[in-house]
């Protein structure tokens, strides 16, 4: 059986400028931040990013890596508005395809099912239709004859997700309460990279419904302890609220210079030093 383990740098080496990249998690929850940080260390740019956005989007937008963003929101959760995303958007730094949360979800389902679209009762009557003039409607072929929005498939070149545990074959397990849409991101992508808190040899007596991500949809597995920091990765750890506040209040160049110049190990130790200074 194929051992798919790799380093964050190996993942990034397989990404190219101009790609469409899906990022799992939700808001400031279980984001594959270690992989995003590895991406920031590379020269990959001009990305179309598909994300239920959190600081993953904030970081990539601030660093000028996004050409186009597909999202329903960008938030830090405990701080509702993501400052770096906001600043980039207000200076017109990237194009936006703003979709409703449900349209986004059905777009993932469509892509995972190799369908061009799925019908949704969402978007009609809202300005989502005005700001996305490429969106089309579809009429039910049955007696009701209703008209729906045809949510377009969100097919992606690559997906990045983070889970609690994974094995070397690419099977991924989540231990928190919400799977978010990580399995769909993997199935909607031509290649998918799963980072995890800890690599395991097997899942033992795990409840099978926690085994969210199946290896056939996974290209690479990366062990990145604390790899979702500063987002939450329940139950392994909560969101680092003190650091979220610091991130939101710190000018981008200062934040990047202190935390993003070294490798992942360097990032984790810089965070530790920062916390010690706060005591």
């Amino acid at each position, binding site marked *: 059986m194929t051992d798919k383990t790799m380093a964050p740098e190996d993942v990034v080496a397989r990404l190219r400028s101009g790609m469409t990249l899906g990022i799992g998690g*939700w808001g400031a929850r279980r984001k594959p931040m270690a992989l995003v940080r590895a991406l920031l260390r590379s020269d990959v740019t001009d990305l179309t990013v598909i994300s239920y*956005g959190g600081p993953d989007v904030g970081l990539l937008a601030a660093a000028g890596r996004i050409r186009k963003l597909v*999202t*329903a*929101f*960008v*938030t830090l959760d405990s701080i*509702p*508005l993501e400052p770096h*995303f*906001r600043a980039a*958007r*207000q200076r*017109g730094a990237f194009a936006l395809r*703003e*979709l*409703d*949360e*449900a*349209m986004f*979800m059905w777009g993932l389902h469509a892509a995972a099912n190799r369908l061009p679209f799925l019908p*949704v*009762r*969402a*978007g*009609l*009557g*809202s*300005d*989502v239709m*005005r*700001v996305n003039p490429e969106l089309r409607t579809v009429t039910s072929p049955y007696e009701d004859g*209703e*008209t*729906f929005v045809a949510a377009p498939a969100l097919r992606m070149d690559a997906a990045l997700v983070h889970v609690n545990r994974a094995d070397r074959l690419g099977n991924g397990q989540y231990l*928190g*309460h*919400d*799977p*978010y*849409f990580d399995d769909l991101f993997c199935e909607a992508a031509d290649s998918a990279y799963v980072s995890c808190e800890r690599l395991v040899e097997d899942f033992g007596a795990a409840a099978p419904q926690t085994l969210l991500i199946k290896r056939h949809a996974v290209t690479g597995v990366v062990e990145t302890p604390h790899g979702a920091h500063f987002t939450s990765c329940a139950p392994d750890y909560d969101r680092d609220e003190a650091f979220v506040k610091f991130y939101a209040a710190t000018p981008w160049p200062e934040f990047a210079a202190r935390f993003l110049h070294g490798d992942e190990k360097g990032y984790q130790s810089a965070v530790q030093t920062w916390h010690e200074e706060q005591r």
Partner: protein
Amino acid sequence: MTSRAEYAVLACADAWRDDGEVLASPMGAVPSIGARLAKRTFSPDLLLTDGEALLVGLDGRAEGWLPYRQHLAMVTGGKRHVMMGASQLDRFGNQNISCIGDWERPTRQLLGVRGAPANSLNNPTSYWVPRHSRRVFVERVDMVCGVGYDSAAAAGPSATRYHRIPRVVSNLGVFDFATPDHSMRLASVHPGVTVEEVLDATGFELARPDAVPYTREPTAEELRLIREVIDPQGLRDREVPA
């Protein structure tokens, strides 16, 4: 003496009256306290969430699993009544939480449309505004996220089929759309507020009955529940100062 925040809690709670066995999705402190008050008193069948992926009883114990993907199905299944916030709201109940200014190049980027387009077409969607002003109650919203009555009508039967905005609650009063053209109507003012005050703080012509009633008084038991059981820390007063 009942505080302004307590009248607002009461008005929010009443939004879920007679809703039956549906999910109450409150956004903001005052609506959250209102939803729990409704469940503890006149709407015991309501479902509540922990704000994450669980359905919980009043004691906080889990009674069900509701991850985002199932929550979105609850929206389209209609077994939910959400009370959302609004950065802008207009006379037909169009709501904006996405951005201020021109969408192409906004002066202030906000959250994004989130689930408002689907919410407003599929399950009853009420709104909560903690600071009633002309900046929020505008003639026309900059970006229609939650769909108002005029926008739904223009979009056709698929949009209007399950569309309903039961009420808007602010720190000044309660509003509904019980007018022939579904334009916003001042249904009640909270005691201590004048009708003129509401009109001054609203950026559009507000329909109103000849005599505007006051928001109802709480029962002694409702006040006790709010003050001693549901919100002893006084989160309501931080959202709506006296």
